[in-house]
């Protein structure tokens, strides 16, 4: 396989149709764009229906990106729905030293067991709890986005936080209460998540 430019980070997202994996993937592209990066965010389209497994991809780089293929050897993998672990080989092609970032209420040990003794880097984020505590409802996208940024180190955290405040401010200018909720969700995730 091609050895991509050192500074290109490739991320693969796994989710289910309707859960927002595609949206989160595009949010990450947007956040990286704000940070001055070259970005790609694209979903892989199959027969689309609610609940069906879907895949989405990000490339983030300091250089212009010309490759237009899917990603087979990701630097990091994000799993938005842990039930996918039973049906999708989410670790397929994950690079040595790459991080699996997963939305789950389970412990890291339980996730490792579900993955047949996976001993690579792991970041478990309970996006539902964080989102419920901060936004009052289960909107996992902001915690997932923050978890990916924190775990992967692909963006400068301070700049990311400032950019997202502006972005939420723009997006929710008619609903200011949502801005603070999202910022809280973002901050709480950044404070909480660890890679082990």
């Amino acid at each position, binding site marked *: *396989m*091609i*050895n991509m430019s050192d500074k290109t980070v490739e991320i693969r997202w796994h989710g289910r149709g309707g859960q927002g994996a595609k949206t989160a993937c*595009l949010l990450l*592209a*947007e956040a990286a*764009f704000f940070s001055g990066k*070259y*970005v*790609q*965010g*694209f*979903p892989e*389209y199959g027969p689309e229906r609610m609940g069906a497994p879907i895949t989405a991809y990000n490339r983030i780089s300091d250089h*212009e*990106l*010309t*490759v*237009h*293929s*899917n990603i*087979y050897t990701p630097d990091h993998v994000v799993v938005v729905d842990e039930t996918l672990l039973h049906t999708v080989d989410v670790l397929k092609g994950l690079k040595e030293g790459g991080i699996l970032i997963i939305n789950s209420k389970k412990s890291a040990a339980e996730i490792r067991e579900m993955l047949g003794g996976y001993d690579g880097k792991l970041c478990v984020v309970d996006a539902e709890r964080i989102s419920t505590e901060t936004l009052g409802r289960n909107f996992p996208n902001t915690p997932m986005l923050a978890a990916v940024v924190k775990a992967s180190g692909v963006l400068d955290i301070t700049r990311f936080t400032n950019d997202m405040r502006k972005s939420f401010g723009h997006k929710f200018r008619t609903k200011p209460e949502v801005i603070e909720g999202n910022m809280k969700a973002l901050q709480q995730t950044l404070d909480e998540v660890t890679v082990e």
Partner: protein
Amino acid sequence: MAIRERMSGNEAVATAMRQINPDVCGAFPITPSTEIPEYFSQFMANGLVDTQFVPVESEHSAMSVCIGASAAGARAVTATSSAGLAYMWELLYVAASSRLPITMAVSNRALTGPISIGNDHSDSMGARDSGWLQIYAENNQEVYDNFIQGILITEATRLPVMICQDGFITSHGVANIELLEDEKVRDFVGEYEPEEYLLNAENPLAVGPYGTAPYYMEVKRAQAQAMKEAGTAILDVARRFEELSGRSYGFIEEYRMEDAEMAVVAIGSSAGTGKAAVDQLREEGVKAGLVKVRVFRPFPAKELAEALGKVKAAAIMDKAESFSGCGGPMFAETRSALYDLEQRPALVNYIYGLGGRDVTVDHFFHVFRDLEEICSGGEVGEVYRYIGVRDGGAEK
């Protein structure tokens, strides 16, 4: 100052349409071009354009709307894909033979059989003999730039133009883009002032009459002449666009071809993937290059002959079958373009990426390995090949 943005190829086309503010948009949605009329109708609802947006019941009617509008003297645009383009077929010929300027975005998608929403070029390649100009884009930036240029090219040549991009791959992929300011685009495309049009009472004319035998062939000959001369307008618009944007465009783009011994010829997003393979091979000392075909109609025969005349072997990539039994459309025309060269490279053809089959950097490595063998004296063998297919067990 250019506006740094990030958006999908479809949004880029819709943005170009908003900045152009055309008179009429014929609209019927079909995956993966649906977002274009979606975005555009939002612009219209928000009062950002004063285009007559005509939502119709089929692509046949969408093209008919454009034909009627263009004949009447209006600047007309539309967008489509796949079966939608196929359903326009009859009208494509009407538009071209009536010499009506129309700019149509095509988000390329496979034609049905079996049903597929995936990308390939079978839709627009199938329409290659319809008399339309065809310009292809590697990424969202190019499709945006091409659409803006397309308006002036179609009006200068009086040949309708398809502005093509790869469905999903670039149409739905979000990436960086540099937009031009609205007023710069509006100044660039200017007001459309057709020489002749139906709503001009001073100078009545007929559009689309019966072409009896004494006249039909002259009409076709005139279309052929317009196509032969279209290159001048394409380059002239490109030159003016470069002054505006700093981005240069031609019929083809030569990538690391200066001293190349072998080359790949590709259209659309895969050209970008191929460039990554070329870069890697160059680091290993392999003299690899790539030629991207931007303008397919008129066919850049002279430019391809010049570019490929320098190499020992070239692979022509076709993202469409033509079922000739001996190669795809790009291959047939490229090989023909090289026939008169005294020193011809060995040419092979790869059918690839049909129906959304992913095209990887590894595929290009494989193609270049095949070319290396040919360059070092290996037998060329069968020139009509497939890549990325499960073919009797051995996936290439």
